């Protein structure tokens, strides 16, 4: 196994790379897809990202074909079907790669090393290799041939969304980066920009980052607030509601759709707006619960960030890869057996506001997780912009997957890497919060405060509001959402 690339860099460069993140303006994309026009784009892998990105690129007037392993073609596997039924040319590595100008590696992380080792000798001199996640380069230290340009274009949404938004005439926020060690012709950025335009990403906002910033912030966000906190929160809140005698179907539904509903408020106006959706007494309760949880969970967030930074996490996970994913598959099976996962949502009407009123603890968990992830990332040298996108910005997207089909759907949609990290977090966080949960009653999860009088102390409310609004994630969020206002959907 090669060296962890990040660990080979001097601190000065590590910090410089972690600090890269800039929101690009629409005006920087006036050249459209020109840099890719007429070039032969070959996609490796035809799963959700591979297929949907390819459909978008072709509909943008680009020449796209798919290369699959010979077995996948011979056995007419799903990936072969995906590509052929959509009218794409499909060929083996040997058939397509030698003439490819741009190769998009859209296989899962764990296949990157064998895939890249197999394709590199076939790629023509001066071609471009694109990733949608930097794990292989940063954590596994993959060395790419010097003449090859290495870029990253990472739509920050599941593949199905990448396609759906494109068809609507929009796109999904996209992160792009150029691997500085592999930019022999100096056109890496132009290619990455054209690729982002081809998938529609430029309309929704493009962040220019680095491979390192992407990996370290992405891993941290997905393990903690995005997937980990939502999974832990789902399990704890459900069990508590059952303990408190809430009807199981109602409890299941409150959680399944509660994350989506409450984080929708987050999307539009940050933590402030999400908290403002609560009544004043409920807001103060959520604030206090969140503060307690932040104190309890802070060491866990630090541990996750430290393990990600020093390579412990990737090493642990890669050991499981080598062991045929024994841990991952076992944990996945365990999750499917949880009471929450096995209880279907009841067919009861829950009004939008009721998700807030009866889900005070869930709101507090989202607030605690977003703020902690953001604080921990920025303390580790990740720039605030990156930290915002990898915490607050993506939470609603993950919440949407839970709304579709609970934790199963979330874990099926996210990468194996995210899923593995999510379980690690969950296993540590559930016991960590067990004492805290003992004091929780149905007034903050399941039934709502049900007060006769919504009165609060003015001074306390002002104090709480100030604390919410002045958190650094709210500061950067205000700026970034402002940038995006120019280009975001007018709905």
């Amino acid at each position, binding site marked *: 196994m090669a060296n962890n690339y990040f660990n080979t860099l001097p601190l000065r460069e590590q910090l410089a790379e972690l600090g890269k993140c800039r929101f690009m303006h629409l005006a920087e994309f006036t050249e459209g897809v020109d840099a890719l026009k007429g070039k032969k784009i070959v996609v490796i892998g035809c799963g959700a990202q591979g297929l949907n990105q390819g459909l978008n690129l072709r509909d943008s007037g680009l020449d796209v074909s798919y290369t699959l392993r010979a077995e996948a073609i011979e056995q007419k596997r799903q990936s072969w079907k995906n590509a052929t039924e959509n009218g794409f040319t499909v060929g083996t590595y040997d058939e397509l790669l030698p003439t490819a100008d741009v190769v998009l590696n859209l296989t899962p992380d764990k296949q990157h090393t064998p895939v890249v080792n197999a394709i590199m000798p076939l790629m023509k001199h001066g071609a471009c290799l694109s990733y949608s996640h930097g794990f292989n380069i940063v954590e596994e230290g993959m060395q790419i041939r010097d003449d090859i340009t290495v870029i990253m274009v990472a739509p920050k949404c599941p593949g199905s969304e990448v396609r759906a938004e494109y068809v609507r005439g929009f796109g999904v926020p996209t992160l792009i980066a150029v691997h500085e060690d592999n930019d022999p012709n100096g056109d890496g950025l132009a290619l990455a920009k054209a690729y982002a335009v081809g998938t529609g990403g430029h309309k929704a906002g493009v962040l220019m980052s680095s491979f390192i910033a992407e990996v370290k912030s992405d891993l941290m966000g997905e393990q903690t607030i995005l997937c980990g906190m939502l999974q832990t929160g789902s399990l704890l809140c459900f069990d508590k509601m059952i303990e408190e005698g809430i009807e199981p179907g109602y409890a299941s539904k409150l959680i399944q759709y509660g994350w989506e509903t409450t984080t929708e408020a987050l999307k539009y106006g940050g933590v402030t707006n999400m908290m403002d959706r609560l009544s004043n007494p409920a807001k103060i309760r959520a604030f206090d619960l969140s503060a307690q949880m932040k104190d309890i969970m802070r060491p866990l967030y630090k541990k996750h960030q430290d393990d990600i930074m020093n390579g412990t996490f990737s090493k642990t996970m890669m050991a499981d890869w080598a062991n045929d994913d024994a841990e991952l598959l076992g944990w996945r099976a365990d999750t499917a057996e949880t009471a929450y996962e096995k209880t279907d949502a009841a067919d009861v009407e829950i009004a939008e506001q009721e998700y807030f009123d009866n889900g005070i603890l869930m709101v507090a968990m989202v607030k605690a997780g977003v703020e902690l992830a953001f604080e921990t990332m920025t303390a580790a040298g990740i720039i605030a912009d990156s930290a915002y996108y990898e915490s607050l910005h993506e939470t609603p997207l993950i919440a949407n997957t839970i709304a579709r089909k609970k934790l199963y759907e979330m874990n099926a949609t996210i990468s194996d890497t995210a899923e593995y990290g999510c379980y690690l977090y969950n296993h540590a966080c559930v016991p960590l919060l067990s004492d805290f949960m003992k004091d929780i009653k149905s007034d903050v999860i399941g039934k709502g405060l049900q007060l006769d009088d919504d009165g609060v102390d003015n001074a306390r409310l002002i104090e709480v509001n100030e604390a919410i609004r002045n958190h650094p994630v709210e500061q950067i969020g205000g700026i970034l959402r402002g940038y995006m206002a120019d280009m975001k959907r*007018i709905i």
Partner: protein
Amino acid sequence: MINQDAVCLDALSVDFDGRFQLSDIRWTIQPGEHWLITGANGSGKSALAAVLAGEGECLSGSRSGLPDRVALVSYERQAELIEAERRKDDADILDVISEGTPVAKIIDEVCQDHELAQALVETLGLRPLMGRAFRKLSTGETRKVMLIRALTSRPELLVLDEPFDGLDHDSLTWLQAHLRVLAKTVPMVIVLNRFDECPEFITHIAYVDHGHLLHQVKRDDESAFAELYQLLHLKMSELEVPMADPAVRLPALNSGDPLVRLTGATIRYDDNTVFENLDWTIEANEHWQLSGPNGSGKTCLLSLITGDHPQCYVNDIMVFGFQRGTGESIWQIKQYIGYVSSALQWEYRVGTGLRNVIISGFFDSIGLYTKSTETQKAIADQWLALLGMTARADEPFNRLSHGDQRLLLIARAMVKHPPLLILDEPCLGLDDLNRQLVLALIERICTSSETAVLYVNHRLEDHVLGIDKHLTLSTPSV
């Protein structure tokens, strides 16, 4: 005093001197109901009113429960009376100047309540005209005389065809007040083509179209009432289909080139062939109807044209001058096409305001992501006016009724005046009333623009005027 029998027209078809027919009218007026009859010009609403007064030759069906004294005020009655007066004028034969029947006598002929008659003559300012010949009155004055005749005849059913037309303001106010009182004792049927004049006491509305009684709606059914209002507006409004945005110029097509040419088109999944070897050319300004059973691939075929079907890249397709698969983008194709389908409606689940939904048609997007110009906003407002939705411009789209959403999406598809408008079962899932609305809008578009229309439909009665070419897909091969 109130007639205790229901008036019942059962499967009634009536002929009016071979000029007009009402067909298969099924209508019951229960005691205590007051009806408004409405419909576009020439729809037969006056004929329906006249039927209540016993007019027309009954071809089939029956009318029952009509009281003895039905008073009808209508232009036709007015014209008949004037015509009769004219015939009495035998000046040509006797070489004397005929004075004609004086107004007082005309009123007296049918009067059952002289006290009321005197009061009405005063109120309506006819006193100075009582001695004048009826046929020398102005139209408005004649109308007042007709009203007095009807009101003083102790009617058991009062049928008023456009009673407010041509009345001066004071008379109008008086008449409205008088009818309000009268409504407590006399059932009324009033013909109006403007909803905003609909009196408070009306309990039901009948909508007539092409000699058929198409819709019967209760006054307190607010959504149906609103839809009828809109339908009438679409049929009657003199507003034009708004122009395209002059600032947006589509790249011109070579004249003589077809809009669409499919050669040997085939769609296949695994071993399942949806259709194969299909040739089809659509020339500019042609209107096509596409039909075929479920599963015959109608929507697939359309999506080959719009570029939404991925197999468009493996077919020989020439659209708007682009040979597909040669480096064009789908947005270059879509700019030439307006598209409406129930699938689009399903996709279009956004809370965008109505104005923005229409504007999104300029950009072929679902939702609006691009800043629009003042001109585009103005054009969108003209469409809203045409649809009768001006007051609702900022309402969220996803709160509209199904039918209203469909209308809006048609306006969205048409807003840029595309060379090709594709309507994939635009009436699917709509009730009768909303179907009428959609068809009325499509008809206005077909007859007032240069857009070629490609229309997919199952139902024969949803035929649109002006669509003369047909392509029928057969049942899929198994």
